[in-house]
């Protein structure tokens, strides 16, 4: 059994409520920080812990915090990113639904560290019922003196509120989130200036993921060094993985970083293997934006080494033979799934979610969707594959925000690893409507 730091108390009856949470040691970390630590010492512990952003990019949290500008007399803001809209990802929801006080505790600690007196949780509008759970928990925290003025006599004031989006994946991008929180359309801003300098209402702002902020609680409880001892190399601590697709046990699992993919995918403690005894075809290990891996690169790397659930090992081989840990949305495909159809589906998603500000993203996603739809439906031409390759290359790196890259990578990876399946669709326009291609062949390595 791996060590659990976020979900360790999840099975305690009533842990959603303040009383039970407090009895289980809840808010002890805030007490410790406010009584015994300066804000800079909290930042220092987070730096030592090696914690990396759990929202997708994996940027070191302590370092991000140290970038925040501190001009005299200007308020600073901490925003929690609870937009959770990356296909395959449903872990933040699980935390907020089942143990809402953990996030609140993490936000108090982080706001204290950053010197913020007003913080917000921005939650996707479809999670309105979770917004109500959070508001209830926040009211309990106010009532018990953990929020508001002069928290527990420390002199530190903090107001915390939750505010909803209304259906737009792009609002998970941090500057779009800020725009949305200001009551506007979610159009990402051109950077610089970065939010750490000019964010919400032009004030210095930090945006962090739900899981990142929650992880600050165990870090303060156990100390950054101890946290850094869990996991593997620069992938420290634990990570929530939301597993879905064709597996026996879909759900949210907390793993110690460094667990082997094989154990995660096949053991009964986690995914329980491919559903109905079928064979594995492919896996998208970190949410829809990261490259798809064919079956022979899932549990081992191109060098034949064991693939691990860590930032480094999942990326081993670069985009040629690796992928990314991303947001931890682990999507599994069995042998009966069609890679062309799924790539079309994902591309339709990005086209729908593009905010439309930059032409490579707005037009490119639309073209890729059209071409993929044509191939999937038996009307493709051989040169369509090259056309797709060309379009995705022209999007990547040429846009205001990373949604463009997120749309390009899945297409590139699908063509890279499943070209024969694309060609089969084009050569067998009738057959491809009736059946699926099956597994791709493992290339024979020439030494």
């Amino acid at each position, binding site marked *: 059994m791996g060590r659990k730091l976020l979900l360790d108390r999840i099975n305690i009856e009533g842990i959603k409520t303040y009383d039970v949470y407090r009895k289980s040691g809840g808010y002890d970390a805030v007490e410790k920080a406010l009584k015994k630590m300066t804000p800079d010492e909290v930042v220092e512990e987070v730096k030592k812990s090696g914690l990396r952003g759990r929202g997708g990019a994996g940027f070191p949290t302590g370092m991000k915090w140290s970038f925040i500008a501190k001009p005299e007399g200007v*308020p600073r803001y901490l925003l929690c990113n609870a937009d*959770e*809209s*990356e*296909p*395959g*990802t*449903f872990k933040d*929801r699980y935390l907020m639904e089942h143990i809402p006080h953990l996030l609140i505790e993490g936000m108090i600690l982080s706001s204290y560290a950053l010197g913020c007196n*007003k913080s917000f949780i921005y939650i*996707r*509008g*479809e*999670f*309105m*019922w979770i917004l109500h759970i959070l508001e209830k928990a926040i009211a309990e925290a106010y009532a018990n003196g953990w929020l508001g003025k002069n928290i527990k006599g420390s002199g530190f004031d903090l*107001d915390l*509120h939750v*505010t*909803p*989006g*209304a*259906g*737009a*994946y792009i609002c998970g991008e941090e500057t779009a989130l800020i725009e*949305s*929180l*200001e*009551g*506007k*359309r*979610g159009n990402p801003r051109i950077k610089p200036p970065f939010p750490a300098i000019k964010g919400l*209402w032009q004030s210095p702002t930090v945006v962090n993921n739900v899981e990142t902020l929650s992880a600050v609680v165990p870090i303060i409880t156990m100390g950054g060094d101890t946290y850094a001892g869990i996991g593997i190399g620069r992938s420290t601590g634990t990570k929530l993985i*939301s*597993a*879905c*697709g*064709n597996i026996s046990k*879909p*759900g*949210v699992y907390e793993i110690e970083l460094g667990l082997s993919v094989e154990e995660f995918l096949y053991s009964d403690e986690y995914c329980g293997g491919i559903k109905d005894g079928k064979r594995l075809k492919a896996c998208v290990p970190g949410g*829809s934006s990261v490259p798809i891996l064919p079956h022979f690169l899932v549990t081992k790397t191109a060098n034949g080494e064991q693939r691990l659930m860590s930032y480094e090992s999942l990326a081993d081989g670069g985009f040629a033979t690796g992928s990314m840990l991303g947001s931890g*949305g682990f*999507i*599994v*495909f069995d042998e009966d*799934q069609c890679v062309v*159809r*799924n790539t079309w*589906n*994902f591309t339709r*998603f990005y086209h*729908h*979610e593009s905010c439309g500000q930059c032409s490579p993203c707005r037009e490119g996603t639309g073209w890729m969707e059209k071409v993929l739809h044509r191939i999937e439906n038996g009307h493709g031409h051989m040169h369509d594959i090259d056309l797709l390759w060309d379009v995705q290359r022209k999007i990547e790196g040429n846009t205001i925000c990373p949604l463009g890259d997120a749309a390009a990578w899945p297409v590139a990876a699908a063509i890279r690893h499943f070209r024969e399946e694309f060609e089969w669709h084009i050569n067998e326009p009738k057959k491809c409507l009736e059946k699926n291609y099956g597994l791709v062949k493992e290339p024979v390595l020439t030494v």
Partner: protein
Amino acid sequence: MEEIQTKIEFKPETLKEIDRIIKQFPEGKQKSALLRVLHLAQHEFDNWLSVDVMDYVARLLHINPIEVYEVATFYSMYNVEKVGKVVIEFCHTGPCCLVGAEKILKHIESSLNIKPGQTTEDGMFTLKAVECLGACGYGPMLQIGETFYENLTEEKVDTLLNDFRLKFN
């Protein structure tokens, strides 16, 4: 299909709630309450935002009507045209499709005899195909109002549709 809604006014308790929400933001930043107020408006005024409703919201928040229109048309949860009494938001993104969402969507389409984007003739159901709702491990799934219905089968969908028919008839 503009409809004139003669008396547009939030219930007193909603107005109180809006007051509470506005106070969460600093003085002068009441526009930040817009998204939430539009959710409340949609809930209170027949599941959609008519121009009159949006103008009313603009007056309440002391912002220009155009600032409301541009937000209402950007976000997928807002309906800017009249919809049915029950709005079904069905997830048709990849992970849900891996576990059979397309088949369930077809089943709903044939049960209601409408395609995504349409409303049944009796004005009861509107069907929307939407993108990932953050329930990928529990698909196929759909949302009605604030509730998620997960791990759907054809039988579950039949029961659900019947329950809503009974509730609203």
